[in-house]
């Protein structure tokens, strides 16, 4: 069966670290940076386990700042 792989890109400067994407992710892919901050001082989100991403776009849909873009491919 073809496996679906996904990935997201996060606009780090726009992210406000609200962690709604982290809570909505069904595959536990995203986390907030534990120490790094962006220019505005927020702990921005990043893909902590990118291999688990299925590209469902749940994170992007609940993101209030529209800083997530989602990519998805079918692995042959």
């Amino acid at each position, binding site marked *: 069966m073809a496996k679906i792989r996904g990935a997201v890109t996060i606009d780090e400067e726009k992210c*406000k670290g*609200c962690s*709604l994407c982290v809570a909505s992710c069904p595959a536990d892919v995203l986390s907030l940076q534990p120490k790094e901050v962006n220019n*505005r001082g927020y702990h921005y989100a990043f893909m902590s386990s990118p291999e688990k991403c299925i590209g469902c776009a749940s994170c*992007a849909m609940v993101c209030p700042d529209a800083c997530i*873009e989602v990519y998805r*491919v079918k692995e042959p």
Partner: protein
Amino acid sequence: MDINDIIKPENRVYKRPALLNDTHMHYCPGCSHGVVHKLIAEILEEMNAEDKAIGVAPVGCAVFAYNYIDVDFIEAAHGRAPAVATAIKRLQPDKLVFTYQGDGDLAAIGTAETIHAANRGENIAIVFINNAIYGMTGGQMAPTTLLGMKTATTPYGRRADLNGYPLAISNLVAQLDGACYVTRQSVHTPAAVRKAKAAIRKAFENSMAGKGTSLVEIVSTCNSGWKLPPVQANEWMKEHMFEKYPIGDLKNV
């Protein structure tokens, strides 16, 4: 497969809507306003309505909505957005006219304008963000504040004998013959976001079809006003707000 092989333009399934300006929103982290702005931008893009849409911005947190959504906007006096939208729609019936209002704007100072615009059956769409608090001015009690809810002006919780009862204005509007579509949605989960998007799209289509007034209430969070982190605020909303403001269609003609 490497992550750089996945992140290519041809594999993109979700992107920032083009009608959303490339600026920082001034909203607090996790605020529902951002999600609803994004939905409106997506819908206008899908309907190819960027040239014929006219929004009316309220007074409240969303006062800068015109900076974020790249369509024509008018800023109305506090609560008067439905009155301004009425004038625009009557003068230019081929435009898609919508208002974007919070609960302090629509349910407090603008109650008369809201009720009468809906009663006249003006062909406008009203997007109503209900977070049960005056967010912009520092978290004071709004008419929609729940009983027992602590705010800056009700530090011991809202009391029915002193402050009255929470106002479910969508139920009031649903009684009116001029209103064609009244619904209550939320944006706390991906599923709820999809439903809210469908509801706002339907309201916009009703406005263009001349069926009457459509009101889409979005039950939202105000993390700063409620003094909760965004994820807990969503949980609190699910537990408490949905009791008084249950999700679903109130009227669909």
